[in-house]
């Protein structure tokens, strides 16, 4: 008598969901596009942290990058808005339901050109929100024009050199009030995953500027946003290790090399020094380091800045804890005595 072997147990995360529950539609971006790698990291980060997918809302503007939210967390509501205006849509939605976890994906055209104003005001408000910039220095959907993050002298496929300096989205984030600012590279799986997990649990605006090469329009010799260029110029500030609250910190590492940052939900970000003497809780250090790196032609990656103490936009607005969207009538329509009072004053 033969027995059929029992199927291998399915791997699930701490809330009992398979990784499949965190996937989205099949990507329609080009093969090798950095954005696809970022989507993969997003899927892993949410899966590994055990975030319920339908408690997440996804937002994007217009561009190749803005297509990505369709390719992860298919069980989460998504909103593909208009070019450069995703921050305002996200702000409204988060105000309507502050219990949701919001994640926005945008590009360098979306953020640094048409949407620069909305980006800066989003930063200023410190909305609890994850803001990922898929930065390739070029407009893909309109076939290869420079964006405002293209480096001075970087070349298009046609050989045309960029003659204007770039906006540095991380410098802007630092100056305008974001409380978690990081830069990464779509090809650095480990670092990007740790940054995403930190962003997920951070209470406040988390900006991750991810250099994400465009294989079709900006991956050639002379481009400063190509895979080859990044491999050569990626300057990691430190090594990151994200330890979620539901796991023990068991491995002992000598104190001198480690800085541990306690995050809002009890998780820990462990930062291991790599040559740089860098304090990510000091904004001035961060700005100086970015400036120096730019002059040296390096791309600094890692946690540039983190502040876990600043009030969020919801705190500033003194908002109700429950979602405004679903408050019952008794709480959103004042009683008739209130109208009577107002009328009396005007009589």
């Amino acid at each position, binding site marked *: 008598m033969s027995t059929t072997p029992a199927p291998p147990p399915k791997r699930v995360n701490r809330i009992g969901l398979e990784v499949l529950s965190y996937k989205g539609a099949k990507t329609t971006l080009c093969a090798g596009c950095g954005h696809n790698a970022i989507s993969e990291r997003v899927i892993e980060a949410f899966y590994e942290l055990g975030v319920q997918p339908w408690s997440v809302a996804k937002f994007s503007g217009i561009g190749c990058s803005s297509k990505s939210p369709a390719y992860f967390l298919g069980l989460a*509501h998504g909103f593909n808005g208009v070019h450069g205006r995703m921050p305002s*849509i996200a702000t409204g939605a988060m105000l309507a339901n502050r219990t949701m976890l919001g994640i926005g994906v945008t590009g360098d055209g979306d953020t640094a050109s048409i949407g620069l104003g909305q980006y800066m005001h989003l930063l200023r408000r410190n909305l609890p929100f994850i803001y990922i910039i898929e930065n390739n220095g070029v407009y893909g959907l309109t076939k290869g024009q420079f964006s405002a993050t293209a480096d001075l002298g970087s070349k298009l496929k046609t050989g045309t050199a960029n003659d204007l300096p770039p906006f540095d989205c991380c410098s802007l984030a630092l100056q305008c009030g974001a409380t978690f600012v990081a830069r990464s590279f779509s090809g650095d799986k480990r670092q990007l995953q740790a940054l995403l997990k930190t962003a997920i649990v951070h209470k406040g605006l988390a900006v991750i500027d991810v250099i994400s090469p465009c294989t079709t329009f900006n991956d050639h010799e002379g481009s400063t946003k190509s895979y080859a260029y990044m491999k050569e110029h990626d300057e990691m500030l430190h090594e990151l290790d994200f330890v979620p609250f539901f796991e023990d910190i068991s491995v002992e590492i000598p104190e001198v090399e480690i800085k541990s940052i306690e995050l809002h939900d009890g998780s820990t970000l462990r930062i291991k020094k790599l040559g740089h003497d860098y304090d990510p809780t000091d904004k001035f250090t961060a700005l100086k380091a970015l400036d120096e790196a730019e002059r040296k032609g390096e791309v600094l990656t890692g946690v540039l800045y983190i502040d876990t103490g600043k009030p969020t936009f919801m705190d500033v607005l003194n908002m109700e804890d429950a979602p405004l969207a679903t408050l019952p009538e008794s709480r959103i329509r004042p009683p008739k005595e209130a109208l009577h009072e107002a009328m009396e004053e*005007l009589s």
Partner: protein
Amino acid sequence: MSTIEASPAAQRSGEFQQPVVNDFSIQVATVNGSGSQTANSVLMRAIFQMGVPVSGKNMFPSNIQGLPTWFTIRASKHGYIGRKKEIDFLVAMNPETAREDVMKLESGAAVVYDEPLKLDALRSDLHFYPVPFDKLVGPVCPEAKLRKLVRNMIYDGVVANLLSIEMEEIHQALIKQFGKRKAKAADLNWGAAKAGYDFAEKNLAKTDPFRVERMNATAGKIIIDGNSAAALGCVFGGVTVVTWYPITPSSSLVESMMGYLKRFRIDRETGKATYAVVQAEDELSAIGMVLGAAWAGARSVTSTAGPGISLMSEFIGLAYYAEIPAVIFDVQRVGPSTGLPTRTAQGDIISTALLSHGDTRHPLFFPCSPEECFSMAVDAFDFAEHFQTPVFVMTDLDLGMNNWMADRFEYPFKPIKRGKVLTAVDLERLGGFARYKDVDGDGIGYRTLPGTNHPQAAYFTRGSGHNEKAQYTEREDDYVNNLDRVARKFETMRSFVPKPQVENNSKARIGFVCFGTSHHSVGESRDQLKNEYGVETSYFRLKAYPFTQELTDFIHRHERVYVIEQNRDAQILGLMRLELTAQDIAKLRSVRYYGGLPLDARTVTDDIVRQEGL
């Protein structure tokens, strides 16, 4: 008005004149920033408190300080609260405009003026009352820097004396204006008003015929501006997310709302706000936030004027196709940016009805009064959520920023309606849903809110390219089906929009159609036509777009229909042309006013007389 004999003797005795009681207009000409607003409001309120129907119109420049401004108060025993074109009683405080203001008056009008201006030398057919304001203000206001402001209250006393406005009512109005917290300011102003009254009593002989007499026509009424009324409507309509960018003449709508929200919508137990108000960086962001919030289920509103509507255009197209509710107040004003931003118009009708790219059409509500600003604000939220689309409430500067006599607002007892929203329980029962499917045949799909605790709740929101299941598509049939369904939704609206006000007159061969603030002057013009020319008219006031069957019925009943509006290009008539038959269109005539001031009855009457050949 009859011409007055200009002999000084006749002026002093006034014996040849019939008194004109509770039927005249006062114009106060001052300099912007001189604090005349308080004096004018107090004067208006005092007449109101005497039971006389009253209206106030502020004609002010786009300026903080220094440019001329005029405030017109109309007392009307007939209850006419539209603007009266002719000025009967002028208070000339502004040296720059005084000469022109006096020259424009019709014979027989009265002029209170600052003595050094020597206006009495200009004409001999007016009643002049010189007042030495600078001499009078010194003793009542020892603090020199306040004199510029207090000076204006002196004319309240002078005018009260000349027009028989009871000083006790001036006093009460002052107390109301300043409230208990500013009792000192009220006292100071009261002193000034009394000084003006006493001066007039001792030194001025009344020669003009104008007088206020106590009536009982304002009992139970309130005085409020349309923006505050709309703000209250939002608060009682259950608004939860409010965004705005300051722009005249809409800013005071949200400013007023913030005051009421703080009073009525902070939870007593938690001390927390059941709302969020955000001053956005621009109108693009303001509408973006409204749409994000509404998509996530909040009752969201923004308030703006024409230039803001233009900026919102792209987002409105997205909202139309993605089917997101929103309430947008357009407090209309004249022209673009640096045109006449502080003057009124109904000039955004076509651009708003068809706002954005692609095929788009949006519902518009047209309130004509503070009562309707309130009730339509409440209704607009239900309407927007029912139809899952932006709704524009089209007021104007005249309604929004001027003070109006109004009935007390009725409390909205009807329960709030949130539209077709599926909960986790519904999804469990249905086993899923298709966001853009026309399940009920009314063109309106079912939606879920982000954050709904169910694995099948989510859908992906994007612009035009989606099928019934909200999946991305570029298929021709999917696109056409979707467009047709949204058009069906617009058809459904016709039976849900606020019904027009219709007064069919069986003796009338002509009918009047208007909307918004034109209502008040058109009503008065109908009386003028009847009393002066024996012409009977029917009346149709639109309260919304899309139009309803009642409009066609009204046109069929009449030989000619005059469409009256406050813009140059006959915009509402233009919208009618898009859907009426050629036969019906042929009956339409146009009456337009676009000078930036509130429409007045005489302008309408004169144009009708011309077109009808009366």
